[in-house]
């Protein structure tokens, strides 16, 4: 790449300015009292099915996904495609389980998973564990969104030394931070419309135009088979990869909806019906994700050769598209990073305020003070993520994100089982969680690199989050059987059920 490309940069800047304006205008949209935390942090829970579709879609399918999924398929072939079965199983789960969470959080004005767990089990230490896990898992995830912006800016041909080289990233980040502070969740909800449409255009163009340039999918897959064979990978799974493939899909699906940013998107919906309709419609994004994965295959057809899998998508864009459309694609990636990064920082801020600061430092906080603190924390979280990207090697952020996944899944028993039963003892869940966290980290440690999978009793290889949560559940179950809880439960059975429309 030699120097800044004027055409692609102009297109990029145009779209970036457009979403910046939208981000600030959003404060007035479906307006409410932004001094209330559920207004700033959940958009007043007024988002109907359409907005929810754009917001959750824009929030879960992140810019990093756009870079990492094709990268994984480029590096590992069929194995990288586990993202598809993973997203297939999420939505049946969302349909069945998540409306119960929406109902109970709505009835008790809970804003986070920690709020629910604290109320359900009457145990603020379990609440703290759930909250800290969420914050810990989210921080590196935000940092990786910045990697997405960085790759996009680099694709424009931007070069610079030291701090000047990071200037565009810093500017993008300041914009993000200020409009999130100002408008809360309304900003990413509004930007999500633009983001999602841009990503759809980019991907649909890529999966039709690029194979046409390269002689069709059959030729592209043949080239990929040859290229992958040199790396010991292939277009189907080796027998030893089957158990890791399946457990990665299940484990990733169990973790996804527990992340603070997922719950923020979900709880901002206007009701269970909006969520159920989205369970039907959100697979459209999963299909898009599958197509995004194919970019990793197309890269072989286009003759792209790189050691850093994260460069696959930018290189493919530069090689295949005219400058103006390359600028559009890079803008799509960068805008695509803003939505999840904003929602993640809001989710982490809500969690910190409600489940760390309020119970342990200042129980009598007023709603206005809660909101002020959450806005402040959203800024701190983002500055932290920026610092990680500027001063820590990217590889560490990727490792931390991998660990974030195996940690996040450890709150599954407390949150999801809790939607159905109070049979478990809060302390037993806390001990199960602690063992799960340590075990997941230990399994993931490798002398040269952190790993996602590990052999289980020499029988098969499984995703570490999956193995650790199985042990976590077993411990919580056995301890709960012998150790009954006398702690209070704020919720009632009826809090979880929809009131039948025909009731009279």
């Amino acid at each position, binding site marked *: 790449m030699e120097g800044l490309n004027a055409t692609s940069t102009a297109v990029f800047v145009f779209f970036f300015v457009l979403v910046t304006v939208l981000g600030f205008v959003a404060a007035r949209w479906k307006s409410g009292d932004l001094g209330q935390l559920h207004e700033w942090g959940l958009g007043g829970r007024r988002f109907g099915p359409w907005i929810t579709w754009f917001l959750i879609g824009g929030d879960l399918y992140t810019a990093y996904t756009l870079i990492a999924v094709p990268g994984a398929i480029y590096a590992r072939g069929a194995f990288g*495609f586990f993202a598809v079965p993973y997203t*297939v199983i999420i939505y*049946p789960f969302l349909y069945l389980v998540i409306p119960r969470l929406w109902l109970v959080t709505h009835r008790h004005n809970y804003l986070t998973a920690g709020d629910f767990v604290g109320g359900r089990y009457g145990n603020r230490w379990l609440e703290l564990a759930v909250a800290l896990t969420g914050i810990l898992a989210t921080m590196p995830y935000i940092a990786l969104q910045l990697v997405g912006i960085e790759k996009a800016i680099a694709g424009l041909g931007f070069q610079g030394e030291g701090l000047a080289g990071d200037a565009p990233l810093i500017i993008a980040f300041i914009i993000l931070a200020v409009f999130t502070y100002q408008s809360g969740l309304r900003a990413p909800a509004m930007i999500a419309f633009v983001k999602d449409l841009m990503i759809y255009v980019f991907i649909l163009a890529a999966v039709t135009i690029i194979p046409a340039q390269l002689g069709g999918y059959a030729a592209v897959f043949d080239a990929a088979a040859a290229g992958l064979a040199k790396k010991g990978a292939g*277009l189907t799974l080796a027998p030893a990869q089957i158990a890791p493939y399946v457990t990665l899909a299940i484990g990733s699906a169990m973790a996804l909806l527990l992340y603070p940013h997922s719950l923020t998107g979900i709880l901002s919906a206007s009701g269970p019906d909006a969520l159920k309709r989205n*369970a039907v419609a959100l*697979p*459209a994004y999963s*299909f898009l994700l*599958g197509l995004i994965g194919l970019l990793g295959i197309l890269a072989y057809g286009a003759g792209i050769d790189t050691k850093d899998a994260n460069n696959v998508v930018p290189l493919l864009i530069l090689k295949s598209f005219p400058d103006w459309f390359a600028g559009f694609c890079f803008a799509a990636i960068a805008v695509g990073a803003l939505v999840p990064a904003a929602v993640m920082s809001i989710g982490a801020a809500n969690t910190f305020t409600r489940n760390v600061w309020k119970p342990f430092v200042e129980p009598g906080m007023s709603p206005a003070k809660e909101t002020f603190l959450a806005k402040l924390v959203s800024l701190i979280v983002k500055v932290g993520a920026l610092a990680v990207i500027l001063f820590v090697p990217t590889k560490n952020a990727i490792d931390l994100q991998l660990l974030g996944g195996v940690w996040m899944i450890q709150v599954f028993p407390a949150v999801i089982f809790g939607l159905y039963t109070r049979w478990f003892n809060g302390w037993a869940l806390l001990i199960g969680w602690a063992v799960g966290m340590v075990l997941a980290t230990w399994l993931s440690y490798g002398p040269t690199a952190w790993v996602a999978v590990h052999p289980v009793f020499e029988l098969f290889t499984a995703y570490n989050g999956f193995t650790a949560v199985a042990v976590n559940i077993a411990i919580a179950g056995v301890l709960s059987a012998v150790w009954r809880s006398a702690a209070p439960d704020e919720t009632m059975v009826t809090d979880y059920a929809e009131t039948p429309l025909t009731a009279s």
Partner: protein
Amino acid sequence: MRHLLLLVPCVAALIPWLYNYSEPRLFGLPFFWWFQLGMIPVSAFFILAVYLGDRR
């Protein structure tokens, strides 16, 4: 009972023995790839069927 229908796409997606083959191809995509891509709209159809059933 209707909710058990939701298990169908989940189970199918999680049994790689069903789809871990190269042939037959479709539009040049090996079976492994197009089958799993196809599972996504199929799963949406199952969820839709359950949703419509629940609303009645």
